[in-house]
């Protein structure tokens, strides 16, 4: 393992810890507030129709 690899592996390990840090928890909550609505919005009819039309081809 090179010095560069060691630095990278260390950074990756830190990434795991950061998820559970106070900032990591706050970030997760904030991202959910920003993105959850988008995921839960109804799918546009036009898009569904496009998929169904292709299915029935």
């Amino acid at each position, binding site marked *: 393992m090179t010095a560069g690899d060691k630095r*990278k592996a260390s950074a990756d390990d830190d990434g795991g810890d950061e998820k559970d840090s106070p900032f990591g928890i706050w970030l997760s909550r904030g*991202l959910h507030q*920003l*993105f959850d609505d988008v995921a839960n919005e109804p799918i546009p009819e036009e898009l569904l129709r496009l*998929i*169904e039309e292709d299915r029935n081809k």
Partner: protein
Amino acid sequence: MTFHDQVIAILPKLRIQALSLTRNRAAAEDLVQDAVCNALAAQNSFIPGTNFSAWMHRILRNRFISDLRKRRETTDIDDVPASSFASPATHEDNLALKDLSMALSRLPADQREALVMVVIQGMSYEALAEATDCAVGTAKSRVFRARRQLEAWMNGDLPVNDRLRMKVKALRDAMDIRHRDGQSAHDLLLS
């Protein structure tokens, strides 16, 4: 589950990926629709039993990159309105959330996409790597750097561009004062 059922089932996740890439709801809706069209046109190239989710996310990502390249010939990525993640008014009332939204929009698209797919969709680094066509180490690194950068910005460290902008503004203000007083401002440019 048929191919078309799988397309419908993955739409909410594609929307999240699209919003994380485009930073704009309307652009995200267009991107999802375009990606679905591409997927329907290429459905014969999908091998049943292989990872449909990764295949679909890659199509959306490639479409985003391809659109970006075309747009760059005529305009700039920064022309896309940023910070449109939190459009509901109730969310904008939350200042910290608004700051987060702004900070997110400043991240490189690949870091933003990686962070969102891991945090919001609960994707593993391996799945993220497959969905974004990169090595697992690269996927981990993108998420790590995104977290670190956001934490720095949210703790008050200004983005490099903002620091530069503030320096330029301070310089302009100083030059204006000199000019108003009828003095030369040449030395300011040399400092």
